[in-house]
């Protein structure tokens, strides 16, 4: 597995390369694997309107080193563009906006390639651009978009299973949606480090039991130094045994029992030493509620187990082959593979390293069992063992996005879903004051959605469009206010709102491309007046 390979690598005595130095601060977040995915990505931006939010998004993707981008934009740079778009200057006036923005964006990172269409005004042929370019990894488009162009993007997205991101920014409001071509599983979700500790104190395996017994055989006669350096895992295993001996073999699982058990551990701490206590026992006491816990199946992996891939191509992918094997493992052992990491704790170096190796060995053993199951099914021999190792290590945090039906490029308007969400959101709003929850941002989405294909609208036009999409919503006071706020902008972007939205869109595009961290599912709405976001699945 990767970890082992890295440990055995000879020490690198020269410093990092220039590229590693340039990307150092981001490599610490998504590592070389994420960087490689970014560098091989090929993005398309179909730009419209003021065109700022799309370009600001690209800026945040060019800087970290996306492979290639193309801008399709048939606007000619006008004076008003210079007041809102930073990637244009006085020399751009009268030229193709796509060209000028592409050139100024490319200055940010010499490793990135960029192109633009159309080359001259009035020569836009989106279909041709799509047909003659190498396959796009992801397409972004901004509203307002011509329905004909949208239809072309939809057809391409369907044919190539391309993720599509739609973005709309006007005045103080914005939203964006990620439309994925199918269920999107993520293994490398980067959970919070403290959440990943899984010590299996209630189901210890023979090597761990033996190790703990060996260290605690004469626990009361150990000298103060050794007693004060017993790892807390060992302390808990020892006193759990003692507890079971006096409780018919049962573990302390109810809250009151855990408190009693915690008091037991606390009472075993030596206080007659110069320090007046023992750090390792304090760690043990603090860990009781968290660590004395039967293993349960987290909702993320449960959803993966329950999901039935519908597409044969999807079914044969390494992810689903491994998922099936981990499921079999779970059904056999009633627990997930041991992840193998041990938190730092007060202990002697040698003892800690031994303990760490016991967990690592168990993790390797579990992963090897899963790998065997993987290799027993058709196509399983082609699966990279490193991928199996990563899945096993992260099994409790694997996540499935866009699992239920819909959400693809076809579902820009899923009327039924929208009506359900609207009813739910408006009813929540009625209770908001009592429940102290912030008000729904759905009205902002509805008001912007109503202007998806038009440069600008009056409040009345917007409200009437909303009423068509969501019957009854037109009389909602907050919907009317949002419509009025959108009308105020007349389709104009505020630079700050587009810069902020471009930051969020770029972040989500990075997650989708690197398959790391967890992307939104599937719509994020931003309110620049109240300064907050809401994510809804529409």
């Amino acid at each position: 597995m990767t970890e082992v390979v890295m440990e055995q690598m000879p020490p690198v005595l020269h410093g990092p390369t220039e590229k590693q130095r340039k990307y150092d601060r981001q490599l610490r977040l998504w590592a070389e694997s994420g960087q490689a995915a970014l560098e091989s990505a090929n993005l398309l931006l179909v730009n419209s309107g003021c065109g700022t939010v799309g370009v600001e998004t690209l800026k945040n993707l060019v800087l970290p080193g996306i492979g290639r981008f193309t801008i399709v934009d048939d606007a000619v740079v006008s004076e008003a563009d210079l007041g809102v778009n930073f990637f244009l200057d006085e020399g751009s006036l009268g030229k193709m906006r796509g060209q000028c923005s592409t050139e100024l964006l490319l200055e940010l990172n010499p490793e990135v390639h960029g192109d633009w269409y159309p080359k001259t005004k009035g020569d836009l042929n989106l279909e041709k651009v799509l047909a003659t370019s190498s396959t796009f990894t992801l397409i972004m488009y901004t509203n307002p978009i011509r329905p004909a162009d949208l239809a072309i993007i939809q057809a391409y997205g369907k044919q190539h299973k391309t993720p599509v991101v739609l973005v709309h920014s006007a005045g103080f409001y914005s939203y964006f949606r990620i439309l994925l071509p199918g269920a999107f599983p993520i293994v490398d979700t980067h959970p919070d480090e403290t959440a990943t500790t899984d010590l299996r104190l209630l189901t210890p395996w023979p090597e761990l039991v033996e190790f703990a017994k060996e260290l605690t055989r004469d626990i009361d006669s150990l000298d103060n130094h050794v007693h004060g350096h017993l790892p807390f895992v060992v302390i808990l295993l020892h006193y759990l045994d003692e507890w079971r001996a006096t409780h018919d073999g049962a573990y302390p699982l109810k809250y009151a029992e855990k408190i009693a058990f915690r008091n037991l551990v606390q009472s075993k701490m030596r206080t007659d030493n110069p320090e007046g206590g023992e750090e390792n026992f304090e760690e043990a006491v603090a860990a009781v509620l968290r660590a004395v816990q039967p293993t349960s199946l987290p909702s993320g992996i449960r959803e993966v187990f329950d999901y039935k891939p519908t597409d044969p191509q999807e079914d044969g992918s390494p992810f689903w082959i491994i998922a099936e094997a981990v499921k079999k493992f779970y059904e056999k052992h009633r627990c997930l593979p041991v992840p193998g990491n041990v938190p730092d704790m007060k202990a002697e170096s040698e003892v800690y390293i031994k303990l760490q190796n016991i967990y690592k060995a168990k993790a390797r053993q579990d992963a090897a069992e899963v790998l065997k199951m993987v290799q027993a099914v058709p196509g399983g021999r082609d699966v990279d063992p490193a991928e199996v190792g990563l899945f096993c290590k992260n099994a409790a945090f694997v996540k499935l996005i866009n699992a239920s039906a819909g959400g693809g490029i076809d579902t820009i308007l899923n009327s039924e879903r929208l009506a359900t969400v609207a009813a739910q959101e408006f009813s929540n709003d009625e209770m908001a004051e009592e429940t102290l929850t912030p008000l729904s941002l759905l009205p902002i989405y509805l008001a912007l959605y109503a202007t998806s294909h038009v440069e600008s609208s009056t409040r009345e036009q917007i409200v009437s469009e909303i009423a068509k999409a969501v019957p009854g919503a037109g009389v909602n006071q907050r919907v009317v206010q949002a419509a009025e706020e959108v009308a105020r902008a007349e389709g104009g972007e505020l630079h700050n709102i587009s810069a902020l939205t471009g930051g969020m869109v770029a972040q989500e595009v990075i997650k989708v491309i690197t398959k790391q961290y967890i992307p939104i599912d599937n719509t994020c709405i931003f309110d620049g007046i109240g300064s907050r976001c809401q994510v809804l699945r529409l």
Partner: protein
Amino acid sequence: MASVEVYPSIEPLRWKYLDRIRTRPGPFTDLDVFEGSAVAQNMDNMKVLVIGAGGLGCELLKNLALSGFKNIHVIDMDTIDISNLNRQFLFRKSDVGKFKAEVAAAFVESRVKGVSITPHKCKIQEFDEDFYMQFQIIVCGLDSIEARRWINATLVDMVDEENPESFIPLIDGGTEGFQGQSRVILPTMTACIECMLDMHVPRAQVPLCTIATIPRQPEHCIEWAHQIAWDKEKPFPKLDKDDPEHITWLYQKALARAEEFNIPGVTYSRTQGVVKNIIPAIASTNAIIAASCCNEALKIATNCAPFLGMPEQNNYMQYSGNDSIYTYTFQTEKKPDCPVCGNRARDLDVNLGWTLKELIEALAVNPSAQLKKPSVRTEKKTLYMQSPPGLEEQTRPNMDKTLLELGLEEGEQIGVTDPAFPSVSFKFALRFK
């Protein structure tokens, strides 16, 4: 709805989109304070200060220039490093080594016609109140808590009830990886940075005995190389954390120690991360947080929509982007025992058996104190002074005395000063554990 009039600025074509929003009211605009016809001219005459020209600072300058602010100053003492180029988009490879403030100011001035940006390549502490008094809004994009506390204390100290110009809103942004926050401080009216100090808990330090005798983690081996081996062997006269040769030396030392204890995971990158205390940073989070700060600046400057920090309203937006996207926008309350904007002494839990030295160490790590070089006195006597040297020597013997021996009592107030915050006298009421 009758269309409400737009009041165009001097360049009506250029600022068409901005003028629609900033010069006419929307459904949430407070009409008692909003005056659309005056907005453009007011903003033309405003001076805004940006503190920091790094990841947030580059974004702030771009955003303010495209928000219609014409007169901007920027302070940053740092020079450009190659590791800045993945996000600090006003800098190119050929700029490495130059001053950030100068390059950033020149770039935005040349890109956005009509904006003036004045760079200052120095520390914020080098300016006095007269300098800060000339600005109407200050926006911070800093990575240091200490600098934030300093500017916060200075701005609160400057408030003179009789003089409305002494009252300068402070907008503060911060990021770490996929997370960040933006907040608005109206000095003396909203919670200030010192009120919220315990939200930035300092990272727990590894005990020296672990580093020296029982390492278990790669970080312990790196800290050993950094804190112990370097001082013992002095391979170079002074440690330069940006010199690859120095980091390589530490890396090799750490690696040898890790091999001795069978500890896996010491790498060059990790060594550099621990020694320089590197915080991951990316373009997208900086874009989000800086734009949020400038959005508030535009709203404060124009009143065209409610802003964070209005009385009894939210003043803080917390952002998290690791797992989906999540914002939490809330109100932080002013603390009556805030040493900067409150007037009550803050409780400090101490132990009668502590020596004064232990009390002083506790002041450094206590989340609501975080004072690294404190001088301490009671109402009756001076307990310890960091300077001048004569006084330091005279009070040094107290360091080893216990609080009991020094005659301190439950509830007694101590006054603490720290050279990092010269305008603040921190008051603590002792509470015995």
